[in-house]
């Protein structure tokens, strides 16, 4: 351990604010990027699934007239 106490570790001999700001921003951005990337994949999966399910329903009721409006598919990113 390079520090005598926990408070000395936080203070870093006056450089604490600089060091901890850097590490804080680093963790927020990295974790945010990772979580966002994961959510985007799940959202894409869900969008694809909805698409396929509607297509299958559409094939079953092919005889009925087409809907009067169309849904626009927007990728969920």
């Amino acid at each position, binding site marked *: *351990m*390079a*520090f005598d106490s926990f408070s000395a*570790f936080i203070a*870093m*001999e*006056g*450089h*604490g604010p*600089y*060091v901890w*700001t*850097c*590490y804080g*921003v*680093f963790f927020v*951005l*990295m974790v945010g*990027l*990772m979580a966002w*990337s*994961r959510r*985007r*994949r*799940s959202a*894409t*999966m869900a969008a*694809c*699934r909805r*698409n*396929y399910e509607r297509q299958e329903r559409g094939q079953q009721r092919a005889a009925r007239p087409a809907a009067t409006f169309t849904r626009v598919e927007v*990728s969920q*990113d």
Partner: protein
Amino acid sequence: MWQFFHKLGSPKWFYGIATRLMPWLLVAGVLLLLAGIVWGLAFAPKDYLQGNSYRIIFIHVPTAFLAQSVYIMMAVAAVVTLVWRMKLADVFVKAVAPVGLVLTFLALFTGAVWGKPTWGTWWIWDARLTSMLILLFLYGGVIALDRAINDEKSAARAVAVLVLVGVVNIPIIKYSVEWWNTLHQPATFKLTEKPSMPAEMWVPLLLAVLGLYLIFGWLACLRMQTEILVREQRTRWVKDLVMAGRF
């Protein structure tokens, strides 16, 4: 060798490999990065000149290093896109550009916060800092250009050309501190020489760099998978995969 190259070009094959690889990349990456950071923050000795502010190096160097490596990888992928028209190469460029943007921003930000207590200023227009800022704009430009062009094939080529044009900036970043007078100090890690710091400082730094590399690998796999799903949603294998619910 060529067979491997062709296999690598198959989105389906890549998707499967990525799924199997990703848990290992994530676990190993997070462990290495955290080990490096905790070691660097709490256990490495302080610097004789800068005191504890130098501890920012344990994230500044990994992010700056990755920011440049990612651009080089993108440039290689751009050549593959232009010459071999391999779809996965283009998928890679689009998937990792935002990651590169975040890493470059982090390198600049941590550098600025480090510069204040050591140099006495947040920012100076020296060759190293300016060329790194240009790298940030290049990443931004790649993302914007890709969004601006609707047609997938034209976008792929335009983006590849932009990435290649920008790659001249990489040697400028790397050698700026040697070619010109700068406020920024020369590199601590060089491939050919011993690092200019003792082992109890460079080992945690190396761990953090390796860890961030693996996390980047995980992010690249994840984001490429997303891009592949969007592009290949009309294919049978994507439909099977999605309907099976195995992500």
